[in-house]
């Protein structure tokens, strides 16, 4: 199942050139970019693992692209996303976040129904691998 999370996720995957341009835009806005990766794209899994530190003081997208190549070498079979953090007062949050790498075989999700106390019905989503 194709995961749709973050910006551009309903578009076809961005090429490296397009990623570099988007990163260039983020940098021109003064946002700090960083890379994160995970093997569990569950919507509630908000803590992806960081690939190195956020790249502060970066001027050109080439720096991030170098790291992305490195990251793909190690975690080519995981989801990798680029985050752009805006530190200006009032925002202090991610302004942009998009997936730049997906595993060949993406996991799907199982919707499970569970009976709770007082015949309440709860639904939970579980990542199904393999």
């Amino acid at each position, binding site marked *: 199942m194709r995961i749709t999370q973050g910006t551009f996720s309903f578009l076809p995957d961005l090429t490296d050139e397009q990623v570099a341009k988007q990163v260039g835009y983020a940098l021109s806005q003064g946002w700090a970019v960083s890379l994160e990766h995970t093997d569990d794209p569950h919507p509630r899994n908000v803590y992806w693992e960081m690939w*190195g530190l956020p790249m502060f003081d*970066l*001027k*050109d*997208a*080439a*720096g991030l692209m*170098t790291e992305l190549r490195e990251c793909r070498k190690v975690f080519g079979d995981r989801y990798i996303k680029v985050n752009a953090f805006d530190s200006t007062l009032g925002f202090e949050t991610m302004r942009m976040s998009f997936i730049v790498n997906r595993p060949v075989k993406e996991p799907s999700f199982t919707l499970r129904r569970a009976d709770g106390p007082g015949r309440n019905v709860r639904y939970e989503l579980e990542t199904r691998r393999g």
Partner: protein
Amino acid sequence: MTDTRVVETVDLQALLRESRVADVLDELDRDLIGLKPVKTRIREIASLLVVEKAREALGVAGAPLSLHMCFTGNPGTGKTTVAMRMAEILHRLGHVRKGHLVAVTRDDLVGQYIGHTAPKTKEVLKKAMGGVLFIDEAYYLYRPENERDYGQEAIEILMQVMENQRDDLVVILAGYKSRMDRFFESNPGMASRVAHHIDFPDYSDGELLQIAGRMVAGLGLRLSPDAARALGEYVALRRRQPNFANARSVRNALDRARLRQARRLIEAADIRASRVFGSAGTDAPVKEAAC
């Protein structure tokens, strides 16, 4: 054979005007005193880049240029200043995308423990991408007396990026001539990756005085004839002393003279905003140089 070229001729002059590089070169001529060989070399590099651009427009594929440079010269001969200008020139010619200068020394590249160097060096390289990386006193990276020095690791990473990402950044190494030569002797890989060696000559006394004039003017002051004469004597004397650092020595002398001028003005209670820098040579640091 089919010829798909659309453009047959390219107006080099137009290209030159378009890149506005002439302004930077003129500025360089105007702002920097002396440094004849340096300016000639920069003109050559600028011309080469314009010609390459023209060739590209004509559809002649040239090999990607390697513009890594080595600036050698005594302290205070303007290596950093020229590096800054270089970033600007390369940016205008479209060789680097952003045109910023990241100036580092050994401390910024080499780590303190195993596994610390690589991330540190890569961090710096990433910041410099799209611009110019200026490594001051680059020979400190290599310490032959310590086999396990982490400097070697930094050099290797540096070389790799210099080779593979030539269009992402330009590296400028700087330092004293003799030590830089020794550095290249012990790192042949580095020597072969640095194509342009530019030697910065020492300034003559006359040039140093001109520089002093510029510095003083930059402070909104001017030298009285006496002060100028005293400064001339000072420069001649200071040159013979150890640790003479060309323009930097002049700057320091001027800074000390400003201190003394301030004291003199306060003591004389003469705060008429006199714009004369040093009257009757009282502020000139000749005595200091002699001791």
